[in-house]
């Protein structure tokens, strides 16, 4: 993994920022988001949420409720931060708003991609392991096929015994892996400095404006989920 030390430091910064945000939220007169919260607070919450999402996705079997709630909260924060992107960068703090927006833009795509591919992966795996749901031809009808969306019906009716589903599932597991990320010199350890890489990663366009620490962090999120999606080798 890259730059564990830097990442840890970032988490400490997150805690400090969160405490500051906490002081903000502690004000009883502060009516939540009735007024637009300061960008620093939203940005801090956003980062915190990204960390949570990252941790959640790193679990071998993520708690779906936790994941869904964090993602929905992240979307809310994003939505509230979006108007800030239209404004010209505020002099102080100097580059914070634009950095946050760029992080937003790159993170959003990366996050959505990670989240989506993970959830897709979950559903592929489910298709593999699900025992065949019996059609209720005896007793009270359990499910009528006609009333079910085709994709759901297909997943449930086909069991692991069906060869074609297995094949699709395996392919599905592999198709998300993008090895180009590993070739990208842009993701080199921070100590070597940033180099423009030959490949295009999702954050490449924003590279000059992104902090090294933020890049590393983003990298961790992506690599973390990619590692998660990588299935066990054929020998297992």
């Amino acid at each position, binding site marked *: 993994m890259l730059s564990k030390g830097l990442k840890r430091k970032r988490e400490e910064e997150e*805690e400090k920022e*969160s*405490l500051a945000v*906490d002081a*903000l*939220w*502690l*004000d*009883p007169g*502060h*009516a*939540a*988001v*009735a007024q637009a919260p300061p960008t620093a607070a939203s940005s801090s*919450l956003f980062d*915190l949420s990204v960390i*949570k999402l990252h941790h959640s996705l790193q679990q*071998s*079997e993520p*708690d*779906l*409720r*936790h994941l*869904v*709630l964090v*993602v*929905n*909260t992240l979307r*809310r*924060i994003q939505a*509230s931060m979006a108007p800030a992107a239209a404004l010209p960068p505020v002099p102080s703090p100097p580059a914070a708003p634009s950095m946050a927006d760029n992080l937003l833009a790159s993170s959003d795509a990366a996050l*959505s991609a990670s*989240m*989506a591919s993970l*959830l*897709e992966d*979950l*559903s592929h*795996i*489910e298709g*593999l*392991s*699900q*025992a065949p*749901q*019996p059609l*209720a031809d005896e007793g*009270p*009808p*359990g*499910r*009528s096929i006609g*009333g*079910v*969306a085709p*994709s*759901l019906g297909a997943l*449930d009716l086909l069991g692991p015994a069906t060869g074609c589903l297995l094949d699709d599932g395996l392919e599905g597991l592999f198709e998300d892996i993008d090895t180009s990320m590993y070739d990208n010199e842009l993701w080199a350890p921070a100590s070597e400095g940033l180099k423009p890489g030959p490949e295009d990663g999702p954050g490449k366009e924003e590279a000059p404006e992104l902090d090294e620490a933020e890049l590393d962090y983003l990298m961790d999120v992506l690599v973390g989920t990619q590692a998660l999606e990588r299935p*066990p080798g054929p020998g*297992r």
Partner: protein
Amino acid sequence: MAGAGGGGCPAGGNDFQWCFSQVKGAIDEDVAEADIISTVEFNYSGDLLATGDKGGRVVIFQREQENKSRPHSRGEYNVYSTFQSHEPEFDYLKSLEIEEKINKIRWLPQQNAAHFLLSTNDKTIKLWKISERDKRAEGYNLKDEDGRLRDPFRITALRVPILKPMDLMVEASPRRIFANAHTYHINSISVNSDHETYLSADDLRINLWHLEITDRSFNIVDIKPANMEELTEVITAAEFHPHQCNVFVYSSSKGTIRLCDMRSSALCDRHSKFFEEPEDPSSRSFFSEIISSISDVKFSHSGRYMMSRDYLSVKVWDLNMESRPLETHQVHEYLRSKLCSLYENDCIFDKFECCWNGSDSAIMTGSYNNFFRMFDRDTRRDVTLEASRESSKPRASLKPRKVCTGGKRKKDEISVDSLDFNKKILHTAWHPADSVIAVAATNNLYIFQDKIN
């Protein structure tokens, strides 16, 4: 509040006085993860009290018959049976460990001398039979007393075996194992009033089972989107109506409750009723959705009402009114200004349960710092009590606790910042008829009784 049910105010105006009765579990400072209690449930008569823990064990306590020579001491609960319900498993296909933690226990109504309960972890539900054996047969013809088979040709006379008393033995045996029906984590099980079927719910699906049949279940609710990218809501709890065997409810992470009628269609994806309180715009925040997520839903014993628990409040709903709850009780409103730090330390995701008393006149739910809250629906009074070793003297009355939110802290009050968020009371249970409550505080089970009785 009339009747034998506990927790409220009888006509005379005397408040119930909750007193310490017993505490079960080790006193050690270092609590083993496996000993953390994860579910508590009285059976239908209240004579048996079951707990499940993170280590997959079930401990059942039985209430002793009242002792006439000590009329003031109500029946105590003592260990009746202990068994390992679930073991950690490994899902080889997904390379995942399946936790042995018992998520829920539900008793079946008693039909003969034996007791039956359902216990579930994340993936597998088991039906356990708990039976007593206090006699054994002696004097078999074909085998010796030590079990060795006799040679039939050596037997010259026949005798009738005699039943002799023996020390009481309580045996728990798994009678059914309901497996491989849930892809996601099971959060609820609920026995139907027909006593033949039950439902199990995970994050995205609800299945209907027949207690006799283990290799088949019917899917009755499925909210999994065709495209998992569109997933925004999960099922958090489900329960059958106590009297109408065709009706059940399920709650969601978005603070909604859906009531479904199994007669209307086989797949109950379309609800019959939809309960949701409109969001209060003045209290809207980034965390609005998380705190609206319902962690528990329980029908009243009468079947006329249901109760939902979200992060900060308990709501009582009239089944005939979908637009808003009948009552809203604030559990710990002082936490509203702390949501950010509670989000940071993940406490905001804690799932608290709630329960009704026998007469549906009072409700109870847990909080932090080992506090739990009781609300009397008739008198509109509420009280905060604490489950702690300090107030654990026999028959000692529990002193109401108060959390100070403002600047000046009065004596005996505790300030919000001093609350211990690691001491959470997530699981509580109320005896179905008497004023006896069971409160799980981490690895300890506290039993409190009402003094008046």
